[in-house]
Structure formats: structure tokens, C-alpha cells
């Protein structure tokens, strides 16, 4: 008689309150929001970082090298814990400096910033490699047409480097979706922590963790389909290799 309790019945996954399906789906929505936000922040940092590393002055280059090396060498979990506490503390100290009362940092925003900071280091390296793969003649030609840096970036560098960057960037997106699970450790209620709470309340750990696993897997598989489409679009007009 013990086994059915542990396996749980599928009624536990119902959407309305006696079931926990709605809680899981809300957790999934939070996870995806953070993953998307963090990925976008990371991409912005990455574009800036890649340009700094390639065209910046010597001091900027060294600082960026420190950033990417250190962030990539320390476990994401440690970075998330450190940045989460330090980040909210610094914000509050700055607020205190201006005489404002301390504010409660929104967990969602903190998660996005933290994931974005970590992702930025990886994006920097991916984009730097992709920009370096552009034939220098293309950039020289654009410069000789007197294009400013902004126009050069928008018209020449970003479109040409995209096919080279997509494999690395899509990998980073998949990592971002999985890294959001680490926010569970600092008590932020995204999919993984919601799952554990559901399991703790009903003792049907196995059922809930399997369902959450299927949700994550669906995100990964659907992303892979989408990535393949983007890849085909970005590679149009490129010579077919293999």
C-alpha cells in the first residue's frame, strides 16, 4: 500500500489548488522569464565585452580578461550566492548614502542581473571568437566607406558574425535555462524549488521531479527546434559544407 502513495496519483498534477500543476507551471514561467532576461543582459554585456576585448585600450582589455577568466573559473552556484547577497547589500548601501530607506530587492530582477552577469562572461568569449572569424577586409572596406563604429556594428559586423556565433549562443541559451535552477538554492521560487516544495508537501517527490524534468526537457527540445530554424535563416547564402 506504500507504493501508490510514493508514486503519487496524477491528480496531484491538477492545475487547481489541491493539485500542484499550476504551481509548477508558474515556476516554469518564472524560470523562463529569468532565463530570457538573464540571457539578454548577458548578450548586451557580451557585445560590449567582445568589442572592448578586440578594439579597446590595454587597460580595458586586461580588465575584461580578468572578468571573463574569473567568472568562468568559479562555480555558477558560488557566483549566484555571492552576487545575490553582495548586490542587494551594495544597492542598499548606495541608497543609504543618499538618505533613502533600504528597499527590498525584487527577486526576479536580482536573478536576471545575476544570471546575466555570469552569462556575459561566456557571451563575451563566444562573440569575440565570432567577430575574429570575420575577414578583416570586410571591416576595412566598411571603414574606408567612412562608416562610424555604430553603423559598422549594425550593418557589417553583427550580420556577418551571426552564423559563426549562433552555435555558441544557442548553447548559452540552453545553459541559461538550466542555470535558473541554481536560484532554488538561494530560496527563489522558480521551477526547481516549486517542485521541491510540492514534493515536500505531498511526499510525492518522484512524481514531481519527473514532471519538472519533462518540463525542462520540453523547453530544451523546443529551443533546439527554434535554434535550427534561426540557424538555417542565418546561414542562407553561405556555402553548404558537408
Amino acid at each position, binding site marked *: 500500500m506504500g507504493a501508490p502513495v510514493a508514486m503519487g496519483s496524477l491528480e496531484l498534477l491538477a492545475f487547481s489548488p489541491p493539485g500542484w500543476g499550476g504551481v509548477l507551471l508558474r515556476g516554469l514561467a518564472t524560470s523562463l522569464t529569468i532565463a530570457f532576461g538573464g540571457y539578454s543582459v548577458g548578450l548586451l554585456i557580451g557585445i560590449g565585452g567582445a568589442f572592448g576585448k578586440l578594439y579597446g585600450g590595454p587597460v580595458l582589455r586586461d580588465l575584461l580578461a580578468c572578468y571573463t577568466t574569473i567568472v568562468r573559473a568559479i*562555480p555558477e552556484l558560488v557566483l549566484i550566492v555571492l552576487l545575490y547577497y553582495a548586490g542587494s547589500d551594495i544597492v542598499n548601501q548606495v541608497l543609504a548614502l543618499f538618505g533613502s530607506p533600504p528597499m527590498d530587492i525584487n527577486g526576479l530582477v536580482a536573478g536576471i542581473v545575476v544570471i546575466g552577469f555570469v552569462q556575459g562572461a561566456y557571451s563575451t568569449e563566444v562573440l569575440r571568437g565570432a567577430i575574429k572569424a570575420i575577414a578583416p577586409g570586410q571591416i576595412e572596406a566598411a571603414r574606408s566607406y567612412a562608416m562610424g563604429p555604430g553603423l559598422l556594428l549594425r550593418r557589417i559586423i553583427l550580420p556577418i558574425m551571426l552564423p559563426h556565433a549562433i552555435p555558441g549562443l544557442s548553447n548559452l541559451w540552453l545553459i541559461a535555462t538550466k542555470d535558473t535552477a541554481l536560484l532554488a538554492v538561494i530560496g527563489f521560487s522558480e521551477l526547481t524549488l516549486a517542485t521541491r516544495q510540492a514534493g515536500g508537501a505531498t511526499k510525492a517527490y518522484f512524481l514531481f521531479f519527473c514532471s519538472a524534468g519533462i518540463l525542462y526537457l520540453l523547453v530544451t527540445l523546443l529551443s533546439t527546434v527554434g535554434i535550427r530554424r534561426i540557424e538555417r535563416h542565418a546561414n542562407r547564402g553561405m556555402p553548404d559544407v558537408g
Partner: protein
Amino acid sequence: MTSWLKPHRIVLLLIAAGLVALVATSMRWYWLPNYYGALLAGIWKTLLILVVTSFLGFLFAVPLGLVQVTGPRPLAMLSQGFCTIIRGTPLLLQLWLLYYGLGSLFPQIPQIRDSFLWPYLREAWPYAVLALTLSFAGYEGEVMRGAFAGIPYGELEAARAYGMKPFTMLRRIWLPRAVQRALPTLNGEVVLQLKATPLVATITVIDVYAVISKIRQDTYVIYEPLLLLSLIYLCLTGILVVIFRYFENRIPTLNA
């Protein structure tokens, strides 16, 4: 080496040294001597988990990659499915699924309670080792698949022309060449594995991350232990990279 020490680097290094000195003098480090032994034990546990799970995971990754290239179709699909599931879900979820999920199923099966395995199944570390091993195998299995598939066909043909049986061919030619091709990626995978090890602290295994968490709880010092932890992982990663670079330089390659 002289080109490494440009003037701006010296200034940056001085600033960095100043920051380190500021951190060392102005922050609270009084707890360090009390937890010296615990920290060393934690680092040792982390390294032990890293080495054991990477080794076991690699052993498991070899058949995973092989059956995807040459195995019967059901086995190949099974192996591919395993790699997809491992790579498509967060490691933390896998770890909790094994620890909480299996942990909630086992006590209800009386046969397991009576078996000799029970004392181990009640501990946390077997679940940690299992989860990290499977994770490493999933990621490295994909690499091994590429390595097995990428061996020039002529080499295998030559082996067959010498009358080698399939197993001899695998043992003498295919496997050594595939492992050699996969070795350069091993560095990155092992560093990733090191960065995955602190997750085991969430299921009560006492690695270096767990020791630091305990220090923070005991002393109410928030940042200093985390900074030290970052430094420890930075050093461990650096040491791993140096070791792998040493071995990579010793493997002769044509396009080196």
C-alpha cells in the same frame, strides 16, 4: 615574459595588490584559524568527488558513444535518449530527483531495507556520486560519439584488412584513437564538473562549499567566507588547467 609586464599592467597589479591588502586588513578573517582543518577536509572531499565521478563518468561515456555510432538501433536510441535527458535538464534537478525521489521510494520496498545495500542507501554521498557520474557521462558521451565517428575510415579498413576481429579492432585501433581525439575536450569537461560539485552540498554532502556555508551560519560573517571560497575554486580551476596543459603537450599531434 618581458612583454607581459607592460607599464599599465604594473599599475593594474599594484591596484589589485592594494585591493587584496584592503580586503585582508579591513574585513573580518578571525574565523579562519578555527576552520582551517574543516576547510582542508572540504577541499579534499571536493577533489575526491571530482576525480571519482569524472573517472567513472568517462568509463560510462565510452560505451555510450560507441553504441551510438555502431551499436544496434534500440541501444543507440537508448543511449541518445539518455544523453538528451541528461543534457536537457538541470543537474540540480537530477540530483534532487535521485536523492529525494529515490530516497522516498526505497524505504517502502522491504527487500531493499533488508539488503546489504541499505546502510549505503541511507547516506547522501552515493546519490551525489551517482548524479555527478551520470551527468559527466551524458556530456562526455556526446563527445565520445563524435570522436568514434570521426576516426578516418581508412584506419579501420586497414585494421580489417589485417584480419583483425571486430573486438581486437576496437581495442587496438578504434578506442585508443577515439580517446586520443576526445582528450582535448576533457579539460573543459572536468572544469565544468568541478563547477558542478558544490551542488552536492544541497543534499548534505560536506564538500568545501558546505564547510563555507557552515562557517557563514556559525559566525554570521557573510562575505569573507564566500570570497575565500571563490579564491579556492579559482585556484583549483587554475591547477586543473595547468595539469591538463602539461599532458596535452605530451601527446604528439600532427597539427600541433
